[in-house]
């Protein structure tokens, strides 16, 4: 039983086939990774899964429902929450407010709740505040709660985006290169955080360049090259796969991994 099932997913941009007939199963409560050299179609794949671009062909099923080409907000409502390769924070707001916005999906206050002191709405606000603080505690950003998101150092911005996504209580968290631009120490802390998230029952699918991170944390790895799926399996199997070595690990990445 898979949480996310991608079948024959294809995306063409004019003559270029960015993602070519990819079929993948992502299990619940596991950490899966998609790797591949630059331009392999990883982000395009993510954009199709999360509804930001429609596929040219193929289907996406999530949690027993077809979500192919549905708008992003409908897909998010089903419990599939993504982050972005270029961090997309609400820069003008505080760290705490960013996380509170993440609670949108499982709260319901509208205009009436904004204008009147309704008991249920006030209780909801208290719960949101508490949950946001708890999540910031968990990801180590508690000290920055009142800081403007715009002035956070880069590594903490990435962390905040993940915290905000967690506030939406995802069943599956899609992370687009969460370690990009992080130093070794920050990457190790991120790896530990990702394992904790999975241990708490949230599945993760991540796109990553950092081979060491992927090999350390992933339960299963899929490899894309020129838009095609060339291998998948456990990290140590994928690492030994000759096609993968030729396409990707054959370069200087192999030495580092």
């Amino acid at each position, binding site marked *: 039983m898979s949480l996310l099932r991608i079948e024959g997913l294809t995306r063409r941009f004019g003559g270029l086939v960015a993602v070519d007939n990819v079929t993948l199963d992502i299990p619940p409560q596991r950490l899966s990774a998609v790797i591949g050299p630059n331009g392999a179609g990883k982000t395009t794949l993510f954009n199709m899964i999360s509804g930001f671009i429609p596929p040219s062909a193929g289907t996406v099923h999530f949690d027993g429902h077809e979500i192919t080409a549905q708008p992003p907000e409908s897909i998010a409502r089903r419990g599939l*929450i993504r982050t972005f390769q270029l961090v997309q924070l609400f820069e003008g707001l505080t760290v705490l407010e960013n996380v*509170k*916005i993440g609670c949108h*999906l499982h709260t319901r*206050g509208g205009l009436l709740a*904004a204008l009147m002191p309704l008991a249920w709405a006030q209780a909801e606000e208290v719960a949101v505040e508490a949950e946001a603080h708890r999540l910031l505690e968990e990801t180590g950003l508690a000290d920055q709660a009142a800081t403007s998101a715009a002035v956070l150092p880069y590594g903490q911005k990435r962390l905040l985006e993940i915290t905000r996504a967690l506030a939406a209580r995802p069943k599956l968290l899609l992370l687009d290169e969460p370690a990009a631009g992080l130093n070794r120490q920050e990457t190790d802390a991120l790896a530990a955080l990702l394992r904790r998230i999975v241990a708490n029952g949230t599945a993760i699918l991540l796109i990553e360049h950092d081979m060491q991170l992927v090999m350390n944390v992933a339960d299963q790895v899929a490899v894309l090259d020129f838009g095609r799926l060339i291998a998948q399996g456990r990290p140590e199997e994928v690492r030994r796969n000759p096609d993968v070595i030729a396409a990707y690990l054959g370069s200087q990445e192999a030495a580092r991994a």
Partner: protein
Amino acid sequence: MNSLITIWAKARGNPIALLLWGLAAALVLYSFVTGGYFIAVLHFAFIYTVLVTGLNVFMGFTGQVSFGHNAFAAISGYTSAVLTATYGWEPLPAGLVGLAGALTCALVVGYPVLRLRGHYLAMATLAIGLIAYEVAVQWDSVTKGYMGISGVPPLGVGSFTVVSDRGLLVFLLIAAVLALLSAAGIRRSRLGRAFVAVAGSEDAARALGIDVARYKLIAFTISAAYAAIAGSLFVHAVGFVSPEVFGLAMVVLSFTMLYVGGIGTVAGPMLGAIIISALPESFRTFKDYQDLAYGAALIAILIYAPRGLASLPELWAKWRGKDA
């Protein structure tokens, strides 16, 4: 009440904030005691506070742009004027009909128009305002064209009417404060968070399950409600309405107030409305150079406090922080 307490907590200990609010309060008190011409300036400022607060919900909180909110003020203002002056209705039911008309129009117009962004949204909303103006001019049988409708009765319920200048000042001050408090309530709520999320990053908002198109329409409709209420208040306060009242000048003036006061802040619309209404008067001594002095003051404010007067306390706190 909570929002009042937050505003006070923020202002306490910040001399600039205290000074700004103190000045505003002194101005209101002074004109209340002495009466005279300046009281009319403040009537005008408080009505505009309601309008600009609405504009702030759509432009400041939600990060959109509208040059057409004068249309909603016009719909409700004319409805109030026609129903009370021509058909002898009470101000309250007439105003409610006007409000309903403006909201219906905002929903119908907003649905297609809000698909546009940036400059295109600006152009489309500008067109809404121009259409409303043309209708007011051409629909002679109802609006009496350029002549306008005079003899609009003062505000009131039943036998109780607000006739005196001082009474009107208090009434409009309450309306303006309620506008600010409701905007503060919206800003701190889940609804307000969805608005500022749309302003911050539409992609991130959608990825978190926020229906961006829906919340833009909600913000547009709410801001139209403020504009409609301002429009009705205006015709009753002045007793007269003509197309010019809700013309392009209204748009320019409300934009100036919003930016000078501080777009996106809760208190900004009121500070901006008071300052922009009072500035030309205070430069009267400059005689021929009045407009020049007014323009120079505006430019100075926008250079030294680009986020408006409401950001001055924050600038002061930062400056003190560096100093310490």
